[in-house]
């Protein structure tokens, strides 16, 4: 897929939570083609400490309104600076990068999409894609607490949503892998994006139940283009670039101890 470096315009800025910002970006021409699970590298202006671009997943692409959405959690200098953007500002993006999640494998397949924290971001776009292409997505989203659950209405508009919170303030109490859904239903495959411990425990469940499973990794990146070899993950095929060969990997290709 052709990659671009472009200045996009900030169309809206929303703060779904004090720790998050949702940027909806647009352009005067139609946004380039992209696939769910791909990411962008954003250039952060006005933050001298932020030298490298920051990798952020494509949260959603609204073709009708020519919008690309980024859901960003404020963790350090760079992401705090991104949260300062105002409507009308421009943001420089290199995109779309990486391979994204698996295309639909068979009609009617039941795909469990598991997200934790800001890892829910790329699942919205993927869920919509799966539904539009004849698969049956089901979301299982985990958060610390009710207020950390993001874009719930948007997820619900796409597919059934199951929730766990660590404090029990919404859905079932506990971690995603403790949800009773997992004992009741069988899925054709699973896609996961979230903190590593969560992905490891979902991978463990997948192996135990013989369910194909892919995970989206967030290794530290410099170029995002497969040129610098900084973002490597150990796999059964040796060290590979998460930015170019991932960020989505089949758990059987990884060397994780699950």
């Amino acid at each position, binding site marked *: 897929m052709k990659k671009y470096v472009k200045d996009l315009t900030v169309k809206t800025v929303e703060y779904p939570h004090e720790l998050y910002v949702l940027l909806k970006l647009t352009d005067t021409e139609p946004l380039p083609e992209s696939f769910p699970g791909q990411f962008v590298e954003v250039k952060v202006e006005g933050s001298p400490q932020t*030298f490298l671009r920051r990798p952020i997943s494509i949260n959603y692409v609204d073709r009708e309104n020519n919008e690309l959405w980024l859901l960003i959690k404020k963790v350090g200098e760079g992401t705090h600076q991104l949260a300062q953007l105002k409507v009308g500002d421009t943001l420089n993006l290199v995109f779309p990068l990486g391979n994204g999640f698996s295309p639909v494998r068979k009609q009617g397949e039941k795909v469990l999409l598991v997200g934790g924290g800001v890892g829910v971001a790329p699942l919205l776009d993927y869920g919509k894609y799966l539904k539009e292409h004849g698969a049956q997505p089901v979301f299982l989203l985990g958060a610390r607490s009710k207020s950390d659950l993001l874009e719930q209405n948007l997820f619900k508009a796409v597919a059934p949503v199951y929730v766990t919170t660590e404090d029990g303030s919404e859905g079932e109490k506990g971690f995603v892998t403790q949800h009773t859904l997992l004992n009741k239903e069988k899925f054709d495959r699973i896609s996961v994006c979230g903190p590593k411990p969560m992905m490891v425990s979902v991978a463990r469940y997948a192996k135990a139940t013989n369910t194909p499973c892919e995970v989206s990794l967030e290794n530290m990146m410099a170029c995002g283009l497969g*040129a610098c070899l900084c973002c490597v993950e150990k796999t059964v095929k040796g*060290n590979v670039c998460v930015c170019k060969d991932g960020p989505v990997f089949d758990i059987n290709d990884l060397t994780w101890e699950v």
Partner: protein
Amino acid sequence: MKNPVMTASGTFGYGVEFADFVNLEDIGGVIVKGTTLLPREGNDYPRMVETASGMLNCVGLQNKGVDYFCEHIYPEIKDIRTNMIVNVSGSSPEDYAECAARVNELANIPAIELNISCPNVKQGGMAFGVTTEGAAAVVKAVREVYKKPLIVKLSPNVTSIADIALAVQDAGADAVSLINTLMGMVIDIEKRKPVLSIATGGMSGPAVKPVAVRCVWQVAKAVDIPVVGLGGIMTAHDAIEFLLAGASAIEIGTANFIDPAVTVKVANGINEWLDQHGCKSVSEIVGQLNA
């Protein structure tokens, strides 16, 4: 060479990774990823950490080896109409020479850049680049088997970079390029551990530029062969500093991560500056510092 702008090894892949952003034929040359005789897995993750105006890396020369390069990568890049230069590394003079001999057979590779300055591998690499004897030994061994232009890439992690440059000139180098990365370290204070997997890494980006300009200036005064300058170049302004310090060409590394189209912008920017200053070619400003 179309213009004095090339890309630095390890930061631009094999060029093809950037083909969506720059027309590779519009830049003076591409120095491809470091290549060794045998395949190398490189160091463990984390291999990169950001720092004020720059970054440190300890990739450790991950590559599939020279045979793989010749069979699988060369066919993909040989028809790109610019100088596709191979960066060669090794762990002994024999190693370097054998790798260079294989590359010598490749018709469309006009030159090699000999990396005697990688700070991120346990064996070899920078070990050769930090003494005049070590540097000369590698260059001599390669010179015997490599018949095309030989650029030797120098390390700034030395007491006198001009002495090393003189030693490689005497051993038969046709040009020198500098600088490779500066050895550095970053510590995670909560974990009380180095951030990088092998503790130290090579620093690059604008933070190292003044060191690089100083090195180029010292080396250009000492040697008679051409000097290729690099280290922290982000803009045409930066590049012109290197040219004035005595470099006849430049390489751009880390800046490609910030703007994948930076090389062409720098090349155009140099031309504009030359026009504005009534110069017809780059050679008119190389080393032209007012004393």
